[in-house]
């Protein structure tokens, strides 16, 4: 059974994770933040690995209200 993109709550301790994301950007210039985001996206893409799931993620990101 191939994995599908998860669009239901899946983060343990979402408030902490979100705070971690903001903390990583603290004190960075816009250019540094953009670079960090890009590196983060690439690292997470590698974690997911499957093109099919990433395509679903790209579609969900493009149309945030869902299909």
């Amino acid at each position: 059974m191939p994995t599908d993109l998860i669009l239901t709550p899946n983060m343990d301790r979402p408030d902490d994770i979100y705070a971690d994301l903001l903390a990583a950007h603290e004190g960075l210039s816009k250019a540094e933040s953009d670079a960090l985001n890009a590196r983060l996206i690439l690292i997470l893409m590698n974690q997911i690995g499957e093109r099919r799931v990433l395509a679903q993620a790209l579609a969900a990101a493009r149309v945030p209200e869902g299909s």
Partner: protein
Amino acid sequence: MNKIFEVPLYPYTRHADQDAATPAHHRVVVVGAGPVGLAAAIDLARQGVEVVVLDENDKVSFGSRAICFAKRTLEIADRLGLGTPLVDKGVQWNIGKVFFDERKVYDFNLLPEEGHKRPAFINLQQYYFEDYLVQRARAIQAEGAPLDLRGGNKVARVADHGDHVALTIDTVDGPYSITADYVIACDGAASPIRSMMGLDFVGRVFEDNFLIADVIMEADFPTERWFWFDPPFNRGQSALLHKQPDGVWRIDLQLGWDIDKEQEKKPEKVIPRLKAMLGDDVEFSLEWVSIYTFQCRRMEKFRHNRVIFAGDSAHQVSPFGARGANSGLQDTDNLAWKLKLVLEGRAPEALLDSYDAERIFGADENILNSSRSTDFITPKSEISRIFRNAVLDLSEHHAFARPLVNSGRLSMPCTYDGSPLNTPDALPGGPARTRPGSPCPDVALGNGFLLDSLGDRFTLLAINADAPDGLSEDGIAVTRLSLTDKDDATGALAARYLGDAPAAVYLIRPDQHVAARWPTYDAVAIRAALRRATGQEMQ
């Protein structure tokens, strides 16, 4: 200056055709004596097809131009009889280094697969490639092959009359006319034949300029491919350093779009750029400098009845990945045997449409790959530059990012998936790399190599399987090559051709591509596959 550029290799001489009362007729006329045209002519003539090559010049092309020849090209050259001089002269390399800003982010080793006669790549100036092709043409002429190479012959008019083509040719002695059954236009990206016929050539222009310089230096740079993204000596741009034979180094420097080309080509502009790159203490001299822009585009169709386009005249790519000359050689490899069968009346003209289908498929693959490389090397938007730089930064520390670094995806032969000549795969458990449409991978066999036993004819490759010596269908003969997995102690034959199958029978085309495969010999299926592979089903 290198003398090779000055020696006329096929100087103009007056030909009897110029004094003929009515235009002389030829089987095939090839226009253009570059790598693609010469390869086409040699391939046809050595198989007995009469061919005339016309070129307005009489020398090798100036400057190094195409410098990276891939294994498939060398295998084709082996079939044409000139693989060994190419490989003996060429520079082999396996190590590549990638630099970003001021630091090396990683290096890689191509780690070529064992059991192949030819290396993954050689670096060799295009003029040597052309020189060896001309020598090979002369050698087969001396053996009686019907090949006529005419320098100083410029095609001025071409007209397709349905069942033949008429050509008017300008020479220093004035114009003359000939006719031909078929014309192969190998006259380059700016193809005059294409223009004369009013045919389109659409695609994507990349707004960028590259300075290429051939530099002679006695430097102790290793035989490696070095690629820089955004180096201090060429800020915001890229650079490439590659070794060629004779102590010549090829340097490519991206310059951007808004430049004065004539100014940038002058030694007083070029030399400081190279000094910044190589260091002040390196002694070098400039052999050749050029500035180029490039496009990724192709013709809508390569075959226009009796005029067939091959190489850069039919399709153009960015230089990243060495997909220009290498794909042109695959064009002629694909075309020569089909044209021979059609001219001999052993296959329908429709077989030539499979050249269109297969090589357009190949051209699209090359355009896709080289466009992607170009987009990585020269990001076209702010966000694509941010991602590109993120990939490079990560690649220094994490292996996962290295496959994303794209400084050119080096030319690989095309697998003709979906070709009208393929018979659906009938070998359960067979390896994907040898499915119908694939170019046969080489295997070391005792004292020789598999590919040297294939080509120029249809072959039935039987591995651990019984098959008759040969068979013939509608005048097309098939020769059997019988092997067992014991013929190769390394297991490569089994890995590349059997996979999980205990035995296999392959039908292999004259261009060493797989047409069909089965677990056992089946005469009816093989005859049907042979009819299909020769275009009998395409009418």
